[in-house]
């Protein structure tokens, strides 16, 4: 047997279990989902083919485009805030001050709490603040929007911070030293050396915040429930609502999900290509 064939032989038993699990839990439901988006159904195991009708129905009302717009606004704002704060924190916590490890742990902790719990806790916190002025979180879409941004920041900053810290620590000391000797100011060092060298961390962090904000569901459900009306309903929740609360719209929800997948895939991929091109070798 050649080496190559041997490799393939071993390949099968190692990959097969995962492959089967992946097929059952991901690939099959994915294609079933695409198929269902062309069907009319109440429960998934009994569907009738209707062609493109579901896709036409999505745009008959504005709720999907409203949700798309709201989600986009949310995503843009949270990508900027999460990454700026996370990077600043990472810079602060790589300064060799006392207790950095404790701070890192504490900042990372919110990420370990589930979204639904977080949503309800923050709902109580924000409402108790707003109630001082006889206002509620679900009284105005703007409060809901900023509430969601706050949750997202609170939850994601710690995680992103860890990634940035790893990146910053990998910046070679000799480069920094050389810059220092050449008389570079701290700002110059930051923008000319540190940031270009941690570009790989930016790539991964931007991708994670982008896809997490775009796909946010449980925080949305728990914090505002899409209220007032459907004004703070994000895409994922809108799809869930169409699927489970509306009658005779299950196929439309599935079609929305397919469009949602395409949007996320395209944006995510474009972002990866874009930031990859900015990465430099040290």
């Amino acid at each position, binding site marked *: 047997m050649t080496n190559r064939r041997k490799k393939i032989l*071993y390949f099968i*038993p*190692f990959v097969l*279990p995962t492959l089967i699990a992946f097929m059952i839990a991901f690939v099959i439901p994915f294609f079933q989902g695409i198929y269902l988006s062309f069907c009319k159904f*109440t*429960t*998934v*195991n*009994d569907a009738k083919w209707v062609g493109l009708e579901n896709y036409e129905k999505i745009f008959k009302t504005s709720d999907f485009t409203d949700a798309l717009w709201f989600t986009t606004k949310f995503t843009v704002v949270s990508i900027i805030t999460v990454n700026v704060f996370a990077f600043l924190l990472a810079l602060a916590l790589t300064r060799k001050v006392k207790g950095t490890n404790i701070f890192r742990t504490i900042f990372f902790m919110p990420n370990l709490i589930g979204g639904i719990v977080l949503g309800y806790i923050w709902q109580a916190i924000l*409402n108790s603040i707003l*109630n001082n002025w*006889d*206002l*509620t*979180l*679900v*009284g*105005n879409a703007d409060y809901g929007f900023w509430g969601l941004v706050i949750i997202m920041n609170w939850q994601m900053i710690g995680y992103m911070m860890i990634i940035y810290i790893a990146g910053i620590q990998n910046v070679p000391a000799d480069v920094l030293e050389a810059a220092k000797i050449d008389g570079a100011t701290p700002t110059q060092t930051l923008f000319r050396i540190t940031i270009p060298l941690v570009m790989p961390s930016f790539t991964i962090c931007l991708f994670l915040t982008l896809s997490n904000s775009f796909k946010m569901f449980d925080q949305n459900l728990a914090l505002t*429930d899409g*209220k*007032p*009306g*459907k004004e703070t309903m994000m895409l994922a929740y809108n799809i869930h609502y169409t*699927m*489970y*609360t*509306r*009658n*005779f*719209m*299950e196929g439309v929800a599935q079609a929305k999900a397919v469009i949602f997948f395409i949007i996320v895939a395209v944006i995510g991929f474009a972002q990866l290509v874009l930031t990859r091109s900015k990465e430099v070798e040290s």
Partner: protein
Amino acid sequence: MRKKILCASMCVAMAASALVGCGSDKEEETTTKAPASDDADADADADADADADADATGGKVYYLNFKPESEEQWKKVADAYKEATGVEVKIVTAASGTYESTLKAEMSKDEAPTLFQINGPVGYQTWKDYCMDLSSTDFANWVADKSMLVTEGDGVYGVPYCVESYGLIVNKTIFANYFALEGRADTGCNSLEDINTFAKLKAVADDMQANKDALGIKGVFTSAGMDSSSDWRFKTHLLNVAITAEFNDAGVTDMDEIEFKYADNFKQIWDLYITDATCEPSLLAQKTGGDAAAEFALAEAAIYQNGVWAWGDISSSEGAKVTEDEIGYLPIYMGLEGEEKQGLCTGTENYFCVNAKASEADQKATIAFVEWVFGSEEGKALVKDELKFLTMFTTFTPDDAPADPLMKAAAAYASNTELTSVAWVGMNHFPSEEFKNVVGADMTAYAAGSAEWQTLVDNCIAAWAEEKALAAE
């Protein structure tokens, strides 16, 4: 060579772990089929059950319960049934406002509910493929008034199991205190019985609100919470009064398009609820059903719009002060013509359906369970004392009516032949959940001052037509 051995042993380990996975799966399955009880003799129990199952019909019963307030009670019924017959009944309860979504999810499973519930003719349109014809079953024939059944052709697909009433639950003590109050305005009413129109209700409520400190209350009406645990009291039940009146005028039981003829009346009562209330209208969006029940239970408010099912929630509120003999009912007046003769709103949203796609054995077991609950002496006792349902089955006599203060107050209205109760025909034909949500969102926005009333009226009419058209496709 070493590497080879390592590789081989890894393969074995992996295959083993995969197989272990399969094994534990199977184990799980058997335990779900015969859930073990907590007792020490769990094993023996489970075995006995499995045998009993096989000996009887071999069918399983899975009831997806609609009423969160009777979750514990249904579990007791299931336990009693298991003790009496050995058949396991699985009870799952959907949280308030999530029945449809839970049902959709559960129905897609292999072990789908065998007994579920629709809210009337509209729910039947969604679930008709899953509703078995029950015309040959005993319990369908036990329904005295055949017009209450959900039928299509000769088939019976939904069987109502309880009659319920709702209206304004009042705290008689607070009202008595108010009527004894010196310096109260002249409203033309000197007792609770004098209130028989919207004008009088408003006059009394406004004056009570003005004297709230003297009465020791926070507001006349409990908070009209628009959280999903509470908003159905208004977007469904309150709106029903206006829509049913429109149906009655036209002499129909359903419409493809509504005029929303009584929008102004609906506005009047909603304005009253949100102004003479325990909290600022802008806070209603976050108020829950529990909040309102607690306010009423603590005698912080005098009027609480809800149905006969609410006593459990009131009496179990922490620090509940309201006692059984302080409770009374008033009809919901909104200034409709002839409302002096109006009674409570009485009807049902609760229809049993048996899953047409379940196996025949499961269907038989399910029907046997329902007939045991509503037909056997033991079952009937549980319905009376635990579930506290007022049923419409002929197997029940007036003596079987539950002893519950709200039930009693409602029964007094029902037996008053001078009054006509308001049917649930409007809400039974509300086109969809989406329609209710649209109205609910506008009611919340109007209360918070962020939307005009006219928006609500326009959206309500439009959503009705759109959603009816969607269902007709």
